């Protein structure tokens, strides 16, 4: 076992995979370890396969890898799906009951799965009929099988807690397997107890029941699987750390950034953010300020969501809406209204596998171009892409500054991999958040003057006044308008108004510092340059570390604001690179296309993935290695992940 340890729990949706993963992750965090967790689920409520992969390390980690050290299965399907992912030296926890299960008889395994699965078997020249047969084969590659009589143990536990009802006790399979897991890796029980207490919160009966089950399973594993060869050790740390998922980071960033109205229509994976915000609606007072609160409105559709947030923004409040692809498609017309009326509204856009309903619960980065171009006509907007959960926090706050400063919609692109991944971080620093409200006027500022909402200025930015302010009157309209906001179709006014609005994009391009628009990592003088955006960041950084260990020099340009694109800077970096590589979670290399459009510089290589699963550090490493060895095709398509 190296530095890190990867645990995976798999089972039918609704059987407590998430809870057990949450407990596992927290227990590790409490023991001073760093954690990165990836959640995979299907568009289903109960029964379909889901899994949670938790990577643990004494060092901070930002990605998944293609390997499992300990696989913890709730059912036969999880064994069949993930058995080959377990690394030599690793182990598989399973129910003794499933050993006799016929693989071909598992009803929830779809035929495309078998096509791939049988191919693997043919390559290996094996033909297992049952789960047990399969495990015997897996065992040959130095993987231990920990078969545990789940039901028998659960019945014993049931007796002790006075619960004989089968349906009630089988609900504890997740805690049982968790106990076995911790027993096998010999992890300190006090951290596990703490995690159980935290997760089951205010329900003492449930806590004691689960603790009992967990301890029993733990002891069982210690007794029966002594020679496991794993040791998961806690480490000392004084660092103040948090553990959270992307949607929470976005929500917290929005709160710190002063968002006070949030509208949404339920959609995966965006809805978690709004639900969290609603739960935490009323804030603590800070200093001598009154407490304040955010209103979260669940609307009838995304059209209402964007238009309601926009209507709210007219009053001077910071408002936002949060959605994913199908919702953003519906928002297109509303976005244009905000554009022509110069309304600061923020859209937090969680991409998932697209088009249409696509892969509703799976990862994708297919919507960069759509975010930049959605809605008819030309108007300025700013598109901001976070690369990790911490960036989600600071970007979510900063999005409002751009929106208000340039008085235009801001689209904050996030993706499913960020939304539903969990990670431990050093405590965020809300003190780093700064609020820039741009030219937001009050009644006092305009007293005695004639105020025009769309006054022509050199920067294109007209000082803004909230509707309802005494001492002024003006109009908004989605029609082309004059300076006071009345409809006009006069050619000269039209020419000037469009130019005024578009001017703001030039102003933003000039003003926003390059440090906010790109991150540059690695060796300045490297001849290999990776360009990417969004969630592949963590996996790319880890792959770069591996390459550096091989003696390869490489650098990485992470684009955080693809629109307006910091083209001079990108040009400078790319001009120095002999090998320019785009890494993106889509088919066509959308950012690469935009860079080529703006700078004329084409990429030499593409590493692309659109199978609905995030990129792992290993697969990026392998793909980059081929490129450095001059053995790669122009396009490499990654297909990892189950």
């Amino acid at each position, binding site marked *: 076992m190296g530095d890190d340890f990867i645990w995976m729990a798999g089972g039918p949706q609704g059987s407590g995979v998430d809870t057990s993963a949450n407990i596992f992750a*927290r227990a590790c*965090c*409490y023991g001073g370890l760093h954690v990165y967790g990836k959640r995979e689920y299907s568009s289903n409520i109960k029964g379909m396969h889901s899994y949670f992969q938790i990577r643990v390390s004494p060092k901070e980690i930002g990605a998944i890898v293609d390997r499992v050290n300990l696989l913890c299965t709730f059912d036969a399907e999880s064994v069949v799906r993930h058995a080959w992912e377990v690394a030599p030296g690793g182990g598989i926890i399973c129910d003794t009951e499933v050993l006799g299960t016929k693989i071909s008889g598992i009803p929830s395994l779809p035929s495309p799965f078998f096509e791939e699965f049988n191919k693997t078997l043919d390559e290996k020249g094996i033909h297992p009929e049952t789960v047990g047969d399969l495990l015997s084969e897996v065992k040959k590659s130095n993987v231990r099988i920990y078969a545990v009589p789940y039901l028998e143990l659960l019945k014993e536990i049931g007796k002790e807690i006075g619960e004989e009802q089968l349906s009630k006790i089988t609900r504890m399979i997740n805690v049982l397997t968790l106990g076995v897991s911790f027993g096998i890796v010999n992890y300190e029980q006090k951290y596990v107890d703490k995690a159980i207490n935290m997760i089951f919160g205010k329900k003492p009966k449930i806590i004691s029941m689960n603790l009992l089950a967990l301890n029993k399973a733990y002891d069982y594993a210690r007794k029966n699987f002594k020679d496991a060869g794993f040791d998961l050790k806690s480490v000392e740390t004084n*660092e*103040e*750390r*948090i553990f959270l998922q992307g949607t*929470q980071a976005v929500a*917290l960033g929005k*709160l710190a*950034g*002063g968002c*006070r*109205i949030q509208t949404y229509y339920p959609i995966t994976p965006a809805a978690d953010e709004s639900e969290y915000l609603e739960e*935490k*609606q*009323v*804030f*603590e007072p*800070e200093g001598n*300020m*009154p*407490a*304040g609160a*955010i*209103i979260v409105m669940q*609307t*009838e*559709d995304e*059209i209402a969501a964007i*238009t309601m947030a*926009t*209507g*709210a*923004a*007219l*009053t*001077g409040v*910071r408002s936002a809406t949060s959605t994913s692809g199908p919702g953003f498609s519906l928002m297109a*017309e*509303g976005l244009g209204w905000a554009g022509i009326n110069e309304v600061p509204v923020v859209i937090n856009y969680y991409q998932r596998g697209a088009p249409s309903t696509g892969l509703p619960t799976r990862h994708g980065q297919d919507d960069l171009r759509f975010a930049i171009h959605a809605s008819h006509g030309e108007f300025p907007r700013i598109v901001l892409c976070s690369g990790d959960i911490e960036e989600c926090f600071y970007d979510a706050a900063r999005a409002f500054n751009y929106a208000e400063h340039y008085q235009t919609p801001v689209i904050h692109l996030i993706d499913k991999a960020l939304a539903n991944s969990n990670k*431990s971080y050093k*405590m*965020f620093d*809300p003190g780093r958040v*700064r*609020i*820039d409200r741009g030219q937001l006027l009050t009644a006092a500022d305009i007293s005695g003057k004639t105020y025009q909402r769309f006054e022509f200025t050199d920067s294109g930015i007209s000082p803004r006044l909230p*509707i*309802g*302010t005494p*001492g002024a*009157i*003006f*109009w*908004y*309209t*989605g029609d082309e308008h004059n300076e006071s906001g*009345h*409809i006009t179709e006069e050619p000269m006014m039209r020419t000037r108004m469009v130019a005024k609005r578009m001017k703001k994009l030039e102003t933003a391009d000039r003003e926003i510092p390059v440090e906010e628009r790109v991150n540059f990592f690695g060796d300045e003088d490297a001849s290999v340059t990776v360009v990417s955006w969004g969630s592949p960041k963590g996996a790319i950084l880890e792959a770069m570390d591996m390459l550096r260990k091989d003696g390869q020099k490489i650098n990485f340009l992470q684009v955080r604001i693809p629109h307006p694109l910091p083209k001079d800077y990108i040009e400078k970096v790319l001009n120095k690179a002999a090998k320019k590589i785009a890494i993106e979670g889509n088919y066509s290399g959308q950012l690469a296309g935009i860079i080529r459009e703006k700078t004329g510089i084409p990429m030499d290589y593409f590493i692309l993935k659109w199978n609905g699963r995030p990129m792992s550090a290993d697969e990026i490493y392998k793909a980059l290695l081929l490129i450095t060895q001059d053995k790669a095709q122009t396009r490499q398509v990654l297909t990892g992940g189950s």
Partner: protein
Amino acid sequence: MALKLADYRTHVFNDWCPGCGNFGILASLQMALADLELQPSRVAIFSGIGCHGKTPHFVNAYGIHTLHGRVLPFATGAKLANPELEVIVHGGDGDGLGIGAAHFVNTGRRNMDMTYIIHDNGVYGLTKGQASPTLKLGVKTKALPKPNINEGINPVTLALVTGYTFIARSYCYDVVHLKETIKKAIKHKGMALVVVQQWCPTYNDINTKEWYNGEDRIDPATGKPVPRLYRLEETGYDGIVHNPDETIPKTLAALAKAYEWGDRIPIGVFYQNEFVSTYQERISQRIADYPGYPPAKQVIADEHGKPVTGIRKLLDELKVTG
């Protein structure tokens, strides 16, 4: 200084067709605002897209001319953020009952404290006279190649079953009745709907001024036309819910009245119920400071741009070490 009617007018050239019913609606609105002496800067007039959509440009108050069908959510957002605004919404019949029908329904059940005035002319005026959702089955207005193949929606009955707490009908030509109805709607605590029977002399050649006046129905006794519209108040009808127990019976009575059409069309208040909590009240139950410190008034940063939102407690909830 007392506010006069002229204070609510703008100098914007009005390009509605001569004789358009919108003129009466505009005048009634301005008269209502003047009667109530509402400060123009406290009033926000929202509109959808259609001929009616130009209304705010003619009124000296904050005006927001939105998108086709989406006027209600725009207005809702503004009212939610700043409940001190007097929000008045103008919508078309196509705008609110066709493309925006989902918003019509859901705005009812929220019961925001706003006023919604539908300019019901039976046609899509601005796109040159296609059938609107309120046009009755089989009716063929001027621009239709064939008679209307759909049944018409009745906005009053729809409002009754979707939670509107003030529902009235009025007529574009009866500016005093309309003005008084708009005033009642503005004063009502909750979501108020005023459906205005509006002529479109250019495209609706069926529901014309003459038709409403009953000029095709001469009373043999008096030799005068028998108007189609009659006033609910004058028949002793009382749509006001005086105690919560009356909610269902009054809704049913209003429904019965709402189905009247053709030769006798009621105008006036069908239903009013102030016992239903408004959205503002519901929010205040969750956020005690909401009325005094609504979103639009909240301070979010100190003078150095430092955020003042206390998220430390939330971060602490996520803490795992230290």
